[in-house]
């Protein structure tokens, strides 16, 4: 009888740690990977010219709250999670490769006289269009960094921008011209760098898909094995998800 009571009250080995892994590591990471894949579906890698980084596709450690890094390190160190460390490294390297490839393509466009001339030509047309038309943002407000914004929009396959963004009208008017005239970006001598960028995105997407599936399967396995809900349940003490702690008090 004593043994049975003991089995109920004492958590199986690792149970509290596993709970921490599920809530503090796996849940935010899985959510972030789902967001990554949604962005890939739109062709949007969220790359920014001012940081040269993908703003919403980050190394895995950045998907975890800073206060939870000890739990993240514990997760990677424990043998039950074997294999994730190498997969995460592969993902993070692929993110870095995408950022590098996007930057190379971007820098190539910034060096392309033809591209810069196309931007200038479009901007001059925009100034004429904007003259006396209140729905067009002031050309002066978009002139600075315009080539950089256009290159960023091409990298992220940006569709329409919200109306209150300064470049909204410009992009609405000239998006097709840049996308069509720059087919494969051969005219700007950036066909190769664009192909390399596309390949790097494809590799990252495949890694992220595989890693997401692995994380989801692993979470299910841990939750089933240790009888842990996949998310904390707000409830009365007698039904607390942290039953082991409560009962042992």
């Amino acid at each position, binding site marked *: 009888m004593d043994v049975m009571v003991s089995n109920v009250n004492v958590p199986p080995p690792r149970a509290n740690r596993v709970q921490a892994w599920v809530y503090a590591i796996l849940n935010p990471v899985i959510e972030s990977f789902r*967001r990554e894949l949604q962005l890939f579906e739109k062709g949007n890698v969220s790359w920014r010219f001012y940081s040269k980084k993908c703003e919403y596709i980050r190394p895995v450690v950045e998907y975890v709250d800073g206060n939870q890094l000890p739990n993240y390190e514990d997760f990677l160190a424990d043998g039950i999670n074997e294999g994730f460390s190498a997969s995460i490294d592969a993902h993070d390297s692929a993110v870095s490769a995408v950022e590098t490839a996007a930057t190379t393509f971007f820098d190539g466009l910034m060096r392309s006289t033809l591209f810069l001339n196309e931007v200038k030509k479009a901007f001059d047309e925009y100034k004429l269009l904007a003259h006396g038309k209140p729905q067009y943002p002031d050309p002066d407000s978009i002139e600075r960094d315009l080539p950089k914004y256009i290159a960023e929009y091409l990298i992220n396959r940006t569709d329409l921008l*919200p*109306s209150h963004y300064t470049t909204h009208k410009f992009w609405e008017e000239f998006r097709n011209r840049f996308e069509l005239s720059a087919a494969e970006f051969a005219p700007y001598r950036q066909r190769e760098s664009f192909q390399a960028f596309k390949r790097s995105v494809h590799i990252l997407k495949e890694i992220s898909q595989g890693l997401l599936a692995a994380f989801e399967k692993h979470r299910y396995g841990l939750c089933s094995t240790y009888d842990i809900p996949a998310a904390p349940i707000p409830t009365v003490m007698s039904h607390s998800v942290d039953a082991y702690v409560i009962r042992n008090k």
Partner: protein
Amino acid sequence: MRTSSEISRRHRLLILDTGPIRELVLFHAVSEFRLENLRRSLRFIKDDRSYKSCSEYVASFGQMTTTSASVVVELYHWIRETEPYGRSKLWRRVYEEFRNMGMDEEVVKLLDMDVSFVMRFGPVDGSLLELARRHAGKNPVILTTDSPLYGECKKGGLSVSHIHEITMSERW
């Protein structure tokens, strides 16, 4: 086709309170970047239609938008109350929103604000009223989600819009 009121609005200045910035940032984060856990925080911009209305309203001022540094501090207090692992994403969104809409930001000193107003409504609302006074020549309009501030502006004859008026109407 734009109305004459929209055309005249282009030459006016829009002063943004914390609430509308927060709503624009949140909706974009939810819809574009799938930060679904933030959806429940949305109070006024809950769908594409209301986002579009608000976005077009702000755009109708021709990128003449400003806010006060006190509002940025209030954004900080809001983000600090959100889940820790989403805070960096929200800050990135705030930066992008300011950058993309060409938002100006101004410091309003405590001593420049009316003490009785600060006592009643706090320094953030006080800073917005001071900006309206400072830019009186540009026919400023304050955009807010704060009903007491809205009422006070109306009472004082200042141009003010509540985000509810924008999101609930087809054309403001």
